[in-house]
């Protein structure tokens, strides 16, 4: 590489190729998991154990609840406060409830839930699957003829897929409550006025947008974290590397998909 432009193009090209390769492996994982599930169904056996699924949902859902609520209340509070102070200058603090309500329903609730789950649960999934790879446990499952993909990935993926929207709804509610609390305290907007305004201005499409996004985030985080975990190479260090990479990838994907989905939703349903 003698000239810098060429080197730059080569580097970008290399990154792009690596990205496509990862995308390919991700698709491979999803496809093979689905195929293993298909095998099980064809044999009239359950593809995963319900107990495993409930264990994971408890972990993903109930386990993340305190953090999601706490974070959302504080963000809602801050948001109401800051927008309130700006809007006060124009005498329209009454706009605070719809702003907080819509922002949380469409954006903040799903996004914060996604980020919390990517770091809290995605990391855990990657680390535990990675440790299982490093310890030869996944090979052992494979050797017994128990498809390890459907056995390990399905309950985890389904749990996070189902729990993300639930948590996002609760996050939204907590954010709005946080906003209502500070508005009552500092902006002279009563609780009932606040909630009435939120209800009045929220549209079904806002709620649907939020729920749709959370499903996408859940699916992404589940897939990325399981993929990174099952791809671990090289023992304990490998697990650490994969876990970091899993959180970084999942958080960036959540944010990136959030923007893309927002653009499409605004264009399609103005």
């Amino acid at each position, binding site marked *: 590489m003698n000239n810098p432009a060429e080197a730059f193009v080569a580097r970008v090209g290399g990154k792009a190729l690596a990205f496509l390769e990862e995308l390919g492996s991700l698709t491979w994982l999803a496809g093979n998991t689905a195929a293993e599930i298909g*095998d099980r169904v064809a044999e009239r056996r359950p593809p995963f*154990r319900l107990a495993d699924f409930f264990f994971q949902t408890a972990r993903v859902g109930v386990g993340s609840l305190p953090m999601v609520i706490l974070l959302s209340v504080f963000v809602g509070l801050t948001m109401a406060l800051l927008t309130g102070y700006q809007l006060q200058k124009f005498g329209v603090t009454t706009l605070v409830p719809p702003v907080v309500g819509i922002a949380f329903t469409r954006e903040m609730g799903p996004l914060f839930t996604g980020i919390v789950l990517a770091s809290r649960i995605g990391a855990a999934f990657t680390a535990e699957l990675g440790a299982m790879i490093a*310890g030869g*446990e996944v*090979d*052992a499952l*494979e*050797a*017994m003829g*128990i498809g390890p993909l459907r056995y390990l990935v399905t309950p985890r993926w389904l749990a996070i897929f189902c729990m993300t929207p639930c948590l996002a709804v609760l996050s939204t509610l907590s954010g709005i409550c946080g906003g209502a609390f500070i508005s009552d305290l500092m902006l002279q907007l009563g609780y009932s006025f606040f909630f009435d305004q939120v209800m009045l201005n929220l549209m079904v499409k806002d709620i649907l947008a939020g729920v749709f996004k959370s499903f996408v985030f859940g699916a992404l985080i589940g897939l990325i974290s399981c993929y990174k975990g099952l791809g671990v190479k090289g023992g304990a260090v490998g697990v650490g590397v994969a876990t970091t990479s899993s959180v970084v990838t999942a958080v960036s994907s959540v944010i990136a998909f959030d923007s893309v989905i927002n653009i499409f939703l605004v264009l399609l349903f103005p």
Partner: protein
Amino acid sequence: MKNRAFLEINGLKLKYGDKAVLDGVTLKIEPREVLVVMGLSGGGKTTLLNLLLRLMEPTSGTIMFRGEELLSLERRELNRARTRIGMVFQNAALISSMTVAENLALPLRELSDKTPKEIDKAIDEKLELVDLKDAREKLPGELSGGMKKRVGLARALMLDPELVLFDEPSAGLDPIATERIDDLILELKEEHNVTSIVVTHEMESAFAVASRMAFLDKGKIIFDGTPDEIKGTDNKVIQKFLAPYLAHERTGELHHANS
């Protein structure tokens, strides 16, 4: 079909990068045989066993298991074939988040139609075999290396396999436990018609269980014959490998002669 070998490995090759770990392994195993595979550390014995379960794909070669070409099986048939093969992993590879009982229950729960009661009974039975009834509710982390190994053995037997692959089953075990495992291998053969491939470095147990012996060196089988034949081999590597055992055996005979 009937006169085909039980397991026939032909020209099996595997490369890691450009390093050939297996370089054309050919072996034929008849039903109810106990084949002991020996070889230097890092010689590719574990790799060979992993290939038999298709935990990795060989570069070339064929593996016929009961008239079926393992390497061309679809996933579903492959998984069915795998349930007929039990593997005792070198590092036991127990599921660390599950108790011993859950580990043993796993293959039955996932792959058989047994009721929980029957599964419970099977667990007790297999734990009895490996002398670990007390460890039932323990987690793998609470077991010693040798205990884990024996649980791994019990797990390999849960589905009553026709072929059992033992990867150094007695490494790290005391002489009494080793002897017990040797007896178990013979018992499986005599009473359940199980065929075994045993990778081991313990010459004592190798000669105790083997009906045939193979020596893997530099990716090739350099010896394949009966235990008596291997004692008379003129291959330098194998002679060196066997020397301590043979010397010990000879002094043992002397003692017998004297007393």
